[in-house]
């Protein structure tokens, strides 16, 4: 039997040429597959990237601009804020949906503790087509150390908004800011912030409001003393539940995270069941923790029963935000598409469905 496809040398050359043309790796994102089981329970609302990211950067996370759509099906991601750490700086940048970086700012990481995030990023309502983020430095030492940055969508540049007005107007002397956080509310022209400060041996809580489109951080809240004390720490994360009116402080003490809950000026309850850092208090009243990449939900009643614990498989919690009248929890998933390039997909799930999530 004789082959008729040419000489062996010609066959080999032909095969080599074909293989050189075809020698490409298949498109594949390992992070996406790792989280596939989790994100399949959520709605993909947008993708950003590819974004150039310093390969040596750590703690890279993406916070999408707050959605303005009234239904989850029409939510899109016009861009968002990229936070990353490198050496002794934390960098905040705005990236468009196509991955272009428009402006950035650096914050010193001096004084950071391993158990606490030194900076907290609260993405506030997108108003007048302007995305906004409030950066708060929570070192337990400083007063009024928060800054607001805005970006005109879809491709404006990150701009710091003047200087934030201090809390000092509410107190006789400047208090030490221990914690503050945005309180998710249905679409509004204002964002409400809840804060916990320390002044003259007492803790005080209060609320403030900001207008995302203004060049200031106007305060219109009130402050009052409370008999509750948080033992030991000089730093705390603080949340206010719009659903129940509860104040929630999450802090690291005695080698683990602890949590206290109180209402108004009433006595606090130590939530002995909550032993992980709290990252949000959801519209459902549940406490949400993503410490160590594990999603935990705690029932806010009693001493805080853990009702969900699951591996987030690399998903990062962004925030809770309202879409129309329904609260949704937003997550971002970063995928390395090339050396020094990442893409971020943003997923949303109704807050009411959070307890049903599973790996």
């Amino acid at each position: 039997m004789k082959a008729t496809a040419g000489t062996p040398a010609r066959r080999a050359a032909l095969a080599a040429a074909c293989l050189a043309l075809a020698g490409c790796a298949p498109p594949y994102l390992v992070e996406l597959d790792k989280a596939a089981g989790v994100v399949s329970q959520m709605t993909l609302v947008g993708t950003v990237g590819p974004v150039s990211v310093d390969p040596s950067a750590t703690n890279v996370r993406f916070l999408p601009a707050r959605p303005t759509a009234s239904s989850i099906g029409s939510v899109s991601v016009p861009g968002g804020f990229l936070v990353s750490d490198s050496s002794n700086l934390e960098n905040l940048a705005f990236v468009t949906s196509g991955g272009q970086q428009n402006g950035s700012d650096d914050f010193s990481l001096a004084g950071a503790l391993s158990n606490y995030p030194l900076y907290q990023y609260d993405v506030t309502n997108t108003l007048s087509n302007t995305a906004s983020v409030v950066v708060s430095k929570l070192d337990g030492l400083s007063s009024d150390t928060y800054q607001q940055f805005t970006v005109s969508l879809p491709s404006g540049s990150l701009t710091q908004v003047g200087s934030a007005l201090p809390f000092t107007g509410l107190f006789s002397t400047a208090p030490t800011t221990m914690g503050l956080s945005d309180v998710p509310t249905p679409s509004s022209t204002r964002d409400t912030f809840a804060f916990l400060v320390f002044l003259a041996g007492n803790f005080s809580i209060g609320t403030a409001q900001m207008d995302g489109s203004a060049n200031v951080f106007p305060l219109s809240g009130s402050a009052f003393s409370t008999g509750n004390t948080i033992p030991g720490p000089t730093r705390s994360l603080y949340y206010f539940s719009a659903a129940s009116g509860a104040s929630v402080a999450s802090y690291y003490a005695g080698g683990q995270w602890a949590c206290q809950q109180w209402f108004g000026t009433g006595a606090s309850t130590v939530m002995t069941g909550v032993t992980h850092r709290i990252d949000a208090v959801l519209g459902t009243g549940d406490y949400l923790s993503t410490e160590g990449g594990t999603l935990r939900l705690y029932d806010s009643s009693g001493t805080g029963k853990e009702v969900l614990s699951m591996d987030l498989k690399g998903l990062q919690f962004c925030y809770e935000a309202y879409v129309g009248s329904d609260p949704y929890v937003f997550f971002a998933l970063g995928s390395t598409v090339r050396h020094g390039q990442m893409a971020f997909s943003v997923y949303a799930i109704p807050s009411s469905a959070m307890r049903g999530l599973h790996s």
Partner: protein
Amino acid sequence: MRRIATVCSLIGVLLAATPLAAQDSSSAAGTGSEQKAPRRLLVVLEKGGLAPYSTDEMIILRRSFLTALADRDDAPTAIDFGSRPFPGSIGDRNKVARAAGADCWMVLRISGLGGSPSLNVQSYDLLYNLKTLDFSASRSEGFVMADIFRERWDDVIPSLLKKYPPLVSHVYDRGPPAPVPLTLRAVPGTVITGLSSSPVRVGADGTATVSLPSPAPYSFRAAATGYLPVRMSVYLDGPTELRISQDRSPWLRLDAAFLDGFFPGAAATFSLPSLPFFARLGYTSFRAGIAVNQDQITVSLPLSQVTLLLGIYLSPEDAGVRWYTGLGPLLRVSLPPGGGLTVDALVPAGLQVVGGLEIPLFGKLRTFLEYAPTVYYTPQSDLFKASFGEGNGTSPYLVVSPKVAIQPVEMRIGLRMGL
């Protein structure tokens, strides 16, 4: 018809080549003794390479060879081809030899330096359609032209005598070719082609008989459902019974292959013996490979690809190049670190069109090359485009449209073993 004409031509050569034997046939038959006739060898001497021989010296060497050959008992009758150029291909050489009245030919090429000549011998037997000699010999002393009549060519002529002994003369002396029965034993239903103008089918008793002119060489092909086709050659010399050895056609073939040149995989092909259709289940791992479109040349992805191909062979199983085509789905599965086995979220599935060819190597082992353009389903098209990195969602390897991407060039090469 051409084959029959060739056979008749060859028989004509044989008859023309042995006039004396044919004339003596009656006496040979009368005595009952085994009369033998010498073979007729076309002798060609060529100068090769830098051999330092003039034209005259080559003539002397050729005549020396012819003389030495004629001196031997039972030597073939030499037909001197002279100094003319001899063709290069065996087919053309055979034609020239037949035209010269020979039933075999020999080319003796003398090359090397004058003091250490090298001899290369090639020879072909037209009767049996075989290459009989292809060897080289080296000498430590050069030819001495002044004493060339003593040259015996002992490194060449004995081999020729061995290959071309005289033939029994009845091959020549029984007159014109006469039909004789050729009985073939094979699997019932086997179809024999090449022996006659119409195919011959082996009956239920496992035999088929065909009447053919003898003596003459024949070639034929035997094909039966469920069995590998067989090609055979036979020199028919009187009534003959021949058993055709047929191997069952494999219903299972195993592949070891590389996708896109560098990603290893395996496949099992199931085929129906009576039909040209086949189904193939394939697996390719991207765990270790090499690619040209990455930042680094080595690629290791926790990704695998499972394919199902339904195809049809377009060429017979014994073709020199066997073509096939097929179509089938593929599923991409992944086992990422820290995650469970999952269908790839970025590109979960696709559809592959395959056009391939198989080339036999030896036994039931073949090599194959497949062209397999693929259409991929990309439910997350924005993320899929972002996965290319910078380039505005375009890739030189893919044609991208919403929800679908086409990879026009995808190749698979490997070995296929029939079981």
